[in-house]
């Protein structure tokens, strides 16, 4: 039974190591979480305070100073809308590539990815001018369009990989059963691609939510998202770390929590999304 004893020890070591790594990687976030509930003086205390009566003062201050709900709403609306719009455009393309493959499919995919290679800042002036002349500056619509376009290649790519996992015979079976293209898509394809749709959406949601450059530069009073809220606090009059932490926490909390809950989906979807 010596064999299984070493196995148990090994297992324990592995468990500990995994937890250690996880806690280490999570530590900065956890620290921020703590700081958000400190007072400013506690936040910069040396050595750091670990036990303290939590205060909600920072959150209150943020609430008074800026319309958190407006920013949050903009973030939700723009990221959700751009994800949906992206799906609407990307899904048919991915479908076509996955089920009507041709020699050029691979090239088109690669070309799509390559459109993401121009640094955003290099295109700022052209895009700004375009947005301004089409009246899309500081509108959620404008942001949605830009987010959608910049996420589109990745969406097509992930969906394509996901759809390729679906055996074409199932679609053919539906066709033999008398399904029209639309029925085939809605009643067979859609339910089958739920997993990859979900993971693709989640990834794009995260990317849109965290998009800082365009949201900062193309919005002002009405369409600003939570990333612009951060720009309000990122270097206030003196480094108000506690307040900064609180603001950051508010900015990332929705997406982190959402990410936690959909973690399983992400793991599953990605399996056949990006990899297989």
């Amino acid at each position, binding site marked *: 039974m010596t064999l299984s004893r070493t196995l148990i020890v090994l297992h324990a070591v592995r468990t500990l190591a995994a937890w250690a790594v996880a806690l280490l990687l999570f530590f900065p976030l956890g620290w921020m979480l703590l700081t958000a509930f400190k007072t400013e003086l506690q936040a910069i205390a040396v050595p750091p305070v670990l036990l303290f009566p939590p205060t909600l003062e920072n959150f209150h201050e943020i609430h008074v100073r800026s319309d958190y709900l407006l920013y949050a709403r903009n973030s939700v609306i723009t990221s959700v809308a751009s994800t949906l719009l992206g799906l609407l455009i990307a899904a048919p393309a991915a479908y076509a590539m996955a089920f009507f493959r041709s020699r050029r499919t691979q090239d088109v995919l690669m070309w799509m990815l390559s459109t993401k290679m121009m640094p955003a800042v290099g295109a700022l002036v052209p895009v700004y001018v375009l947005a301004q002349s089409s009246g899309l500056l500081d509108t959620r619509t404008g942001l949605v369009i830009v987010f959608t376009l910049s996420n589109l290649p990745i969406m097509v790519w992930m969906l394509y990989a996901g759809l390729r996992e679906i*055996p074409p015979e199932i679609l053919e*079976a539906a066709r033999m059963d008398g399904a*029209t293209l639309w029925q085939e898509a809605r009643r067979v394809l859609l339910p*089958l691609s739920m997993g990859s749709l979900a993971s693709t959406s989640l990834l794009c949601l995260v990317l849109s939510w965290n998009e800082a450059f365009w949201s900062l530069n193309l919005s002002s009073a009405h369409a600003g998202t939570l990333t612009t809220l951060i720009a309000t606090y990122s270097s206030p009059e003196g480094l108000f770390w506690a307040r900064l932490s609180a603001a950051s926490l508010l900015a990332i909390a929705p997406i982190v929590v959402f990410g936690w809950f959909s973690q399983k989906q992400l793991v599953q979807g990605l399996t056949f999304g990006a990899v297989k």
Partner: protein
Amino acid sequence: MAYLQLKGIEKFFGGHRAIKGVDLTIERGEFVVFVGPSGCGKSTLLRLIAGLESTDGGSLVLDARDITQAPSSKRDLAMVFQSYALYPHMSVHQNMSFALQLAKEDPAIVRQKVERAASILNLGSYLERTPRALSGGQRQRVAIGRAIVRAPKVFLFDEPLSNLDAALRGQTRVEIAKLHRELGATTIYVTHDQVEAMTLADRIVVLRDGQIEQVGSPLELYDRPANQFVAQFIGSPQMNVVAADQWAAVWRPQAPAAARDGAMGLRPEAVSVVAPGLHPVEARIELVEALGAETLIYARTVDGAALVARQSARCAWHAGDAVSLSVDLAQAHWFDAAGRTVRTVH
């Protein structure tokens, strides 16, 4: 009048001519089996009939209607795929009723049809499960059930049993045969399994390299193959074919003139193994396979010809034994140098 008619069907994949002008007529209610080596175009032909591939030439007529250009969904055919292609997100019931729902059939009738099919296929107690929760054989039956609820003009089966294990395979084969008798539906069936082809078919179509080699009833093909290819393709263990230079001296005079530089074919049951000296063809046993009910004996003649004999009695021979072979030359098939059967009168 022919029910389903293929006229000069052609199919190219890029530059590759996969189907080379196939003509075939199938009667209403007939059970036709396509056989042929891997890559010969069986599936492609089936998919052309189903409308899953577009034809590059020729025409298809079904029940006096030209369907060459009709989309699959309008052809009124049902297909059972090799991989079943069940809808994984639907229950068995939904899988089977999907086509009827699309056709906007009255729900009461749908229920009735599905239940009838389920009872034929013994699926009654699985109707609410999803395919994931079914065994291979059950999935297979669902796939068939999905086809039969529709009462289509023609059933298309593409190697439907190849994913099953031997036992289940035999069982399902019998079920398909029974079903065909009961429903009397026109059926086209692709398989590479001997037993399936022999037992199910009214007529077998032997394909090779995108062309039809021979069409006929199973025993017709077994007994009167048009050429060596068909002869060797039908029957298991396959027909012994002995090239002219390995013939025993006693066979040579019997050979028709046209076969002199060809080959002789002998079904394993036309060969029997007897004690040495009893017959002029001396041989040595290489392997004996006792299957219980029958025994396969692999022997090699002094002329170098490898022959398999099949006998239904047990035998006492062992590998290495010297024996002589008794061959029923009346049952021999003769092939000319090009492999075509040389007809003899007997």
